[in-house]
């Protein structure tokens, strides 16, 4: 099965519980399990090839210009992690089915779980670090959803947020690190990066890249000092904890360190940062875990400790240490998942997971006892279980490690960690299962059904089998994945008995020390309770509070609810940036000659200036301001005509008409005059800001117009190929419907959305407080005697067919002459609006058979279908074609497929303009505007007939 498909299967599985939400939790669990199983099967089919040393890859070019390719690969390391993720995932899916209560939204849970699983598979199978980063962020997000699954619990929400903050921040740092890494290597493909070890380690950017990447890995894998999020994430349902914190989420950081091990490791920086962090985390996690009473919290800190152990091994940078690390990843996943599930069973059946309230469960829950004890002993490192073998290997490696000239420090510290590790493992067994039976359990404990214990039982069986026959059950996988990590061909010597060596002695010391700790535990707890210790959550909260406070202070300074203040800040920023850019840009004076000034443009300019000044002076008289807007728009269209832009002039002038009608309609329901409520000082300040910005913008445009193009323009191509490729002589139109058709497609969609938003706004305005206000509306101005005068009705009707023909003509000629869908749409809208205005809404609406919403939809659809049509001819989206047609009776004419697109533009414009105006008239009708069935208020024919 293709690696890409294996990574995609969990995502497909994530969709199914949502679709089958009504079929119940059995079906949801079944489909997710099936998807996982198929993926696992597909993965396992590759085992023989990977054992033979092959790497299975799929390459899909996604955005090759950015170096972002959807490349997937399966090598030994990916195989190991894939088996862990999918295998334990399968057990968790089963377990969760029986763990979650009937009333809980199981479909949602499974969707999150599968999303998470897919993201994890994506990480371990990606062969491109940019792709890996996407999946990396996806695990942060989906684990956030999983940890906060019990939304009603504040701890769940806070834990989820903390996990997201810490891992998300680490992820951001990692993005930077990965980009640096890719830049040094010259490729973002992992296969290429792995071959660039010398270049990367010699680069001056090696250390920054290493630090940033490790920040991502350490936050994800809960390494000190970022370990604090993991215990708080225990507020999640136990299946989530078991999955995230044994086999998947926290192992992602380890995976990354292992994946990049060949290129990053082997330097002193790597050793001191990674090995030291791992060692500290291992000891610290074991120490804290030993004192925890909550079973899940104990296991969480134990996870932190074991992750530290593996990190340390990877940090040593030797092949033997890498083998031990990989082997311990397998072992930890098996016993820790089993232990988490055991803790969940105890919580589920006894009603508590606090050690203080438990004890004596050995007889009450024999199966759970058996499973939990074996797994915990493996965690402690007791022979003949798998945890023992990897712990021995770890201790053996620590005896070879030299930290700053000190050969004893590392193994001594590691032994301390191991002592506490034995301590908490024995505590888990002793204080939960042994001791006297109690009569104050919250529930009467008993063993659960097979659904809950089968998962941990399988894992525990593996714990024993790997312990007894390590080479049969794990050796091949360890060899393959360690080979992928180191790039060599290591052969792991996995055995229970290595002779009476240093590691064995340390192991014996650890076990005896752990037993001693168990005896001393109550006294140590009492002492520890009296000593102050740092509270990570309080610190985290303090930091986030401070950041929030600063952010609010900063944003409040600019936006305090006053739009003017925000706008002043914005325009001043733009102005200053512009000035700065200009002063550093090396402007060398005007290079284009000025065009001569003729009389007519000068007159237009004077008119424009006067109108603008009047606008500022009289804007409070709203009707006058509207007239001035019309004048200014007219002069702007005139300047388009003068400056060789006929299409723009046509568009501007027709938009002007609809804008003025729109504003007039709106003005009906707004105050007729603007109240003067700003002080002189404020107005003076505003005028100052406005003048500065105006000067800046004017100067900028002057400089632009007087300079030649800095780079060769692409316009030449458009002009040259407009006829050849687009089949049209109007270059502007060809650009709109052909060369840049995709932009236009977006723009008509936006226009349609704007019109629909207006419609929706109107809907809400007709209800509630504003609706009541409208129903009680009193018109304050005198009404016209005849609202629909005879003369206007007659004229508009005469004009209608003419304007429609003009519209059609403008539309048809648009490809070769000024015109096109936009202009034609506006002209037809104006013709229709004038019918509404002259003959009244009721009369006009009863003659309209196409709803305007549908027109917008049809427009977007027509444009889209035209675009898709190109696919069938084997061309990319929106490629147009044209040909010439000869019909009898008329001249030969051209037919371009772009015309279908332009028809879409036309329909969308008509629909949008009409819907916007129509919405405003609905408000008028709500306000008691009479709706006429007859077109004219005074109809001579009717009067005559009446007599």
């Amino acid at each position, binding site marked *: 099965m293709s690696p890409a498909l294996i990574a995609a299967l969990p995502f497909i599985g994530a969709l199914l519980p949502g679709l089958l939400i009504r079929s119940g939790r059995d079906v949801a669990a079944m489909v997710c399990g099936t998807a996982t199983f198929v993926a696992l099967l597909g993965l396992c089919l590759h085992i023989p090839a990977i054992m033979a040393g092959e790497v299975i890859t799929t390459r899909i070019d996604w955005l090759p210009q950015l170096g972002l390719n959807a490349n997937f690969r399966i090598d030994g390391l990916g195989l190991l992690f894939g088996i862990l993720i999918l295998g334990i995932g399968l057990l968790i899916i089963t377990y969760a089915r029986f763990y979650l209560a009937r009333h809980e939204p199981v479909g949602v849970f499974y969707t999150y779980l599968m999303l998470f699983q897919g993201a994890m598979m994506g990480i371990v199978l990606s062969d491109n670090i940019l792709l890996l980063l996407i999946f990396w962020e996806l695990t942060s997000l989906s684990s956030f959803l999983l940890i906060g699954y019990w939304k009603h619990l504040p701890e769940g929400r806070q834990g989820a947020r903390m996990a997201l903050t810490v891992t998300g921040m680490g992820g951001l740092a990692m993005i930077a690190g990965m980009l640096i890494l890719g830049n040094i290597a010259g490729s973002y493909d992992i296969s290429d990066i792995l071959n660039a070890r010398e270049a990367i380690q010699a680069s001056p950017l090696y250390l920054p890249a290493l630090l940033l990447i490790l920040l991502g890995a350490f936050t994800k894998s809960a390494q000190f000092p970022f370990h604090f999020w993991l215990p708080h994430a225990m507020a999640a349902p136990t299946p989530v904890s078991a999955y995230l914190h044994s086999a998947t989420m926290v192992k992602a950081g380890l995976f990354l360190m292992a994946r990049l091990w060949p290129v990053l490791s082997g330097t002193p920086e790597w050793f001191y940062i990674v090995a030291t962090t791992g060692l500290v985390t291992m000891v610290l996690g074991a120490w804290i875990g030993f004192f925890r009473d909550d079973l899940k919290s104990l296991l969480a800190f134990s996870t932190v400790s074991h992750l530290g152990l593996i990190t340390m091994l990877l940090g040593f940078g030797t092949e033997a240490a890498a083998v031990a690390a990989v082997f311990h990843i397998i072992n930890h996943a098996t016993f820790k998942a089993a232990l988490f599930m055991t803790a969940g069973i105890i919580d589920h059946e006894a009603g508590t997971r606090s050690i203080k309230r438990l004890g004596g469960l050995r007889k009450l829950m024999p199966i759970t006892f058996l499973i939990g004890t074996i797994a915990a002993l493996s965690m402690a490192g007791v022979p003949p279980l798998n945890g023992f073998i990897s712990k021995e290997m770890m201790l053996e490696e620590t005896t070879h490690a030299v930290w700053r000239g000190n050969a004893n420090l590392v193994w001594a510290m590691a032994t301390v960690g191991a002592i506490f590790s034995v301590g908490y493992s024995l505590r888990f067994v002793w204080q939960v299962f042994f001791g006297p039976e109690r009569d104050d359990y919250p529930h009467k404990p008993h063993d659960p059904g097979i659904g809950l214990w089968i998962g941990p039982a399988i894992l525990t069986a593996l714990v024993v089998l790997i312990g007894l026959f390590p080479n049969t059950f794990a050796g091949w996988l360890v060899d393959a994945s360690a080979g992928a990590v180191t790039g060599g061909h290591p052969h792991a010597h996995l055995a229970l008995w290595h002779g009476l060596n240093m590691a064995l002695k340390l192991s014996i010391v650890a076990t005896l020390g752990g037993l001693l700790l168990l005896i001393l535990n109550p006294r140590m707890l009492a002492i520890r309770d009296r000593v102050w210790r740092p509270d990570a959550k309080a610190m985290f*909260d303090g930091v986030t*509070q401070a950041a929030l*406070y600063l952010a609010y202070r900063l944003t*409040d300074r600019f936006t305090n*609810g006053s*739009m*003017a203040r925000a*706008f002043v800040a914005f325009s001043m920023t733009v102005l200053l940036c512009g000035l700065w850019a200009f002063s550093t840009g090396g402007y060398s004076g005007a290079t*284009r000659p000025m*065009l001569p*000034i003729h009389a007519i443009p000068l007159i237009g*300019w004077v008119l*424009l*200036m006067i109108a*603008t000044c009047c*606008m*500022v002076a009289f*804007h409070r008289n709203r009707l006058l*301001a509207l007239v001035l*807007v019309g004048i*200014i*728009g007219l002069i702007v269209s005139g*300047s388009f005509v003068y*400056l060789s832009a*006929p299409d*723009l002039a046509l*568009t501007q002038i027709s*938009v002007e008409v609809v*804008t003025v009608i*729109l504003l007039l309609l*709106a003005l009906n*329901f*707004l105050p007729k005059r603007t*109240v003067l409520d700003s002080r002189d000082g404020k107005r003076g300040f*505003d005028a100052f800001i*406005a003048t500065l*910005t*105006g000067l800046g*913008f*004017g*100067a900028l*445009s*002057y400089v632009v*117009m007087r300079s030649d193009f800095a780079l060769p*323009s692409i316009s030449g191509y458009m002009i040259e190929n407009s006829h050849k490729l687009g089949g049209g*002589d109007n*270059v*502007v139109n060809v*650009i709109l419907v052909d060369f840049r058709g995709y932009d236009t497609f977006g723009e008509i969609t*936006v226009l349609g959305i*704007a019109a629909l938003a*207006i419609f929706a*706004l109107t809907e809400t*305005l007709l209800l509630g407080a504003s609706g009541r*206000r409208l129903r009680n509306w009193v018109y304050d101005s005198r009404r016209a005697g005849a609202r629909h005068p005879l003369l206007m009705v007659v004229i508009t009707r005469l004009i209608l067919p003419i304007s429609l023909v003009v519209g059609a003509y403008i539309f048809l000629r648009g490809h*070769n*002459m000024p015109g096109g869908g936009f202009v034609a749409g506006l002209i037809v809208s104006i013709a229709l609006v004038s019918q509404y205005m002259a003959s009244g809404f009721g009369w006009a609406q009863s003659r309209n058979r196409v709803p305007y919403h549908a027109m917008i939809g049809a427009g977007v659809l027509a444009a889209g279908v035209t675009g898709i049509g190109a696919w069938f001819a084997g061309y990319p989206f929106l490629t147009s074609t044209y040909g010439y047609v000869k019909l009898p009776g008329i001249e030969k004419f051209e037919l371009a497929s772009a015309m279908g697109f332009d028809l879409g533009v036309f329909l969308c414009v008509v629909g949008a303009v009409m819907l*916007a105006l129509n919405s*405003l008239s609905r*408000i008028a009708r709500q306000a008691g505007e009479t709706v006429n069935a007859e077109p004219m208020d005074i109809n001579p024919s009717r009067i005559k007939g009446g007599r």
Partner: protein
Amino acid sequence: MELLLSSAIGMMTAAGIYLILRRRSFAVVLGTTMLSYAINLFLFSTGRLVINQPPILQDGVTSYTDPIPQALVLTAIVISFGMTAVTVMMALGAFLEGGDDRVDMPRADREPGVSRGDAGEGR
């Protein structure tokens, strides 16, 4: 000619910004309209000013004005109509709903307590 156009652009920008800085919604609508004129003209002018050379291909004519800014501005004009329409509707809605046509957010509508920084955990 360039001087005329750039001074007109500057003037309309200044008028637009002054009107946007007013406190009443209709003035802001007028201001955005003025600003759209100025910006559309500016975008158009980046193709440099050319007289009597429209971008309509004709036999025997070799020099044309730059068609790309024109295509950009054409859609911008139509979009700015859509924007004006939405703004007008919002102004109308605010007036009908809130009873006055001020554009600033009333103090009572701002999230209480946020500026004091007691947001965060548990909220």
